[in-house]
């Protein structure tokens, strides 16, 4: 692989200037940055609601907010975090930026559709933001009927419309990635030479395409019900509210795999780089991604064990849910085997990745608890569930996002983030996270229900610990939000491959030029082969 010269051609950040050149760009790298703006803004919004929730929960009585307001807080926290941060974050920011670079292409298959995806996402976000500003929505992010369809007095349709619209952003991204990975790989880059990040995004794209339309139609039906009272989910008119749950979770369970699969892709890349080894069991990890995508569609009923669903269906869903844990566990074993006898260094991305492995394992194991029908009857709708999904979503997906952002930051911007500060921040995030959410497992098991802001006095100590943890976690996030932009101006300039990683993206300039490669590279080696990696020592 020949290394292109960074000299003559301007990078994708230069060349064209001005707002129009960004808002009308067709360059996947600029679009990735547009998404970075969007997801960061929505993360702040979702985070603000989290702050308010944790403040309220410092005391056992509902003294900060009325119940109706509290309902809006956790609803909006969930909606913004899930639909406007977690789902797009890694695929739309890192995936958009890196996929063509990783496969030796000049852009995604459909650049104009890529830009359209971003606009659709932002319009969707605006609708939901409008709903928030107009008074919010209080149904919970899960919009269960018949409350959402008949009785809620809040801005259900506006909020749901925002989600409906941004769903198409997801679908189009999935379509783009699928076509790109099939057709734009460089010569010599066979499927089994692809970085595992690419496999992960392929599997994610399958879920996006197969699952997202179902929530679109579900939202449509809720809107129709709300506007016309036709009875689709209203038991008084013959409808079944549990049908909503089936339709909703058919997408929303695979959705969590949309959130975690790209994160797993990041982890594979980071672990390989900072162990100086190829990923152990490459093919197994690749197939596990696909297995998670497929099996993930068969388990949605585990959210409905106590909803009135048939107990026989519950047993089937429980068994299938045990099965889906297997490929995830397989990945954890493979990452561990990659670490074994590796030459390990502890740069910030690696700290996030190591944290991921531990926290995702805990999150995943507690998922098995929840998949066990009899246990779930006891802990359903308690803080046990809240802790479980925050372990996988924050301890997992968010940590991976931060790790990936740091790992590819020098590539994206040509600047190094401040390493020591980043490592300290990673530790702060890890400690803060655990202090926030470990007590919640205990709270849930002891019986504290979720979505309540009033609780028995004996739960206060654990809640105070959780809020304390949340402030530390928040501090960690704020620190990255501060030094990352700082580094754009004041960070050390980065070379092509500051971490000595294998992968086509590291052969380009930092930041890459607009068309990525001088000439289409030809791939001869396997993935993660280190022979041609140019080590650039940096302090």
């Amino acid at each position, binding site marked *: 692989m020949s290394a292109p010269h960074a000299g003559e051609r301007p990078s994708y950040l230069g060349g064209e200037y001005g707002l129009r050149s960004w808002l009308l760009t067709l360059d996947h790298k600029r679009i990735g940055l547009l998404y970075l703006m969007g997801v960061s803004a929505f993360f702040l919004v979702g985070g603000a609601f989290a702050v308010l929730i944790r403040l309220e929960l410092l005391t056992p009585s509902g003294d900060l907010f009325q119940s109706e307001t509290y309902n809006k807080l956790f609803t909006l926290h969930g909606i913004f975090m899930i639909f406007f941060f977690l789902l797009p974050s890694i695929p739309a920011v890192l995936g958009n930026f890196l996929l063509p670079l990783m496969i030796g292409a000049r852009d995604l*298959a459909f650049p104009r559709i890529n830009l359209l995806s971003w606009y659709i996402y932002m319009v969707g976000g605006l609708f939901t933001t409008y709903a928030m500003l107009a008074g919010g929505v209080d149904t919970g992010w899960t919009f269960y009927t018949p409350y959402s369809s008949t009785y809620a007095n809040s801005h259900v349709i506006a909020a749901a419309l925002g989600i409906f619209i941004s769903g198409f952003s997801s679908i189009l991204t999935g379509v783009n990635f699928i076509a790109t990975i099939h*057709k734009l790989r460089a010569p010599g880059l066979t499927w089994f030479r692809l970085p595992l990040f690419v496999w992960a995004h392929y599997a994610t794209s399958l879920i996006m395409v197969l699952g997202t*339309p179902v929530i679109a139609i579900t939202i449509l039906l809720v809107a129709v019900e709300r506007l016309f009272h036709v*009875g689709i989910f209203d038991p008084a008119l*013959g409808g079944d509210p549990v049908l909503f749950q089936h339709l909703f979770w058919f997408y929303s369970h695979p959705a969590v795999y949309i959130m975690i699969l790209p994160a797993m892709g990041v982890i594979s890349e980071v672990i390989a780089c900072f162990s100086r080894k190829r990923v152990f069991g490459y093919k197994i990890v690749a197939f596990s991604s696909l297995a998670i995508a497929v099996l993930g569609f068969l388990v949605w009923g585990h959210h409905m064990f106590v909803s009135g669903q048939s107990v026989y269906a519950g047993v089937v869903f429980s068994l299938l849910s045990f099965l889906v844990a297997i490929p995830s566990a397989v990945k954890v074993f493979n990452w561990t085997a990659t670490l074994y006898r590796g030459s390990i260094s502890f740069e910030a991305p690696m700290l996030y990745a190591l944290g991921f492995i531990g926290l995702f394992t805990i999150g995943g194991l507690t998922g098995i608890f929840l998949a066990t029908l009899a246990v779930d009857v006891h802990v359903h709708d308690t803080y046990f569930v809240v802790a479980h999904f925050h372990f996988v979503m924050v301890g997992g997906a968010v940590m991976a996002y931060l790790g990936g952002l740091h790992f590819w930051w020098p590539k994206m911007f040509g600047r190094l983030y401040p390493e020591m500060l980043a490592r300290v921040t990673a530790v702060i995030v890890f400690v803060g996270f655990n202090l926030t959410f470990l007590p919640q497992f205990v709270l849930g098991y002891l019986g504290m229900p979720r979505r309540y802001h009033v609780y028995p006095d004996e739960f206060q100590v654990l809640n105070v610990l959780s809020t304390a943890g949340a402030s530390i976690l928040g501090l960690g996030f704020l620190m990255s939000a501060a030094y990352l932009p700082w580094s754009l101006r004041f960070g050390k300039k980065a070379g092509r491959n500051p971490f000595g990683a294998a992968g086509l993206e590291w052969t380009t300039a930092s930041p890459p030029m607009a068309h990525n490669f001088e000439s289409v590279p030809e791939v001869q080696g396997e993935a993660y082969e280190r022979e041609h990696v140019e080590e650039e020592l940096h302090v």
Partner: protein
Amino acid sequence: MSETRAVLAHHFESLEQQNEAAAIGMWAFLVQEVMFFGGLFTTYLVYRVLHPGAFAEGSAHLPVALGTANTAVLIGSSLTMALGVRAAQLGRGRQCALFLAATIVLAFAFLGVKGVEYAEKWEHGLIPGVRWSPEAGADARLNLFFALYFVMTGCHALHMLVGIVLMAIVAGRAWGGRYSRANFLGVECLGLYWHFVDLVWIFLFPLLYLLHGHRGGHS
């Protein structure tokens, strides 16, 4: 006449690669459309299983003769669309545009008939939530059938409208010589979309109109 020229985007190495990528993209898009309507079919399935009487009775209110004729019209539009794609494949831009025009006419015919059916439902007060006054003795769950009838055929009709707009655009381009033997992808993708719209109706028609149809066709 204007020249036809193949437009190769900068990030593709060959027209073949570009066409194949577009084909995969279009099919991936159709897969999500299948799942979109699939959610509605699932809802139909559940309520049909739960309330078979209501569905049979609701179906009896639908005009079988008109529905059958409309199905034939849509199938005809699929034929004209397929012939339009074939014309584009052969580099015959104007012929392609004419076939697309025929498809648009047939599509409007279909929508016209649906409009007549909807108007008739309005008259009989069979639109749940909007104008609902079924006759006495009607099944208590008739609203579920008609809610699904309107949402499913409504979504289908919306997809047809989008298709008509796209057909007009593509027909204009075909007439202007935009497509050639090497570059007819836009027409092909449009064809795929239109055939998908036909596929949805192929299933909607029996499921809505022909339930326990041994009673004679009602108007």
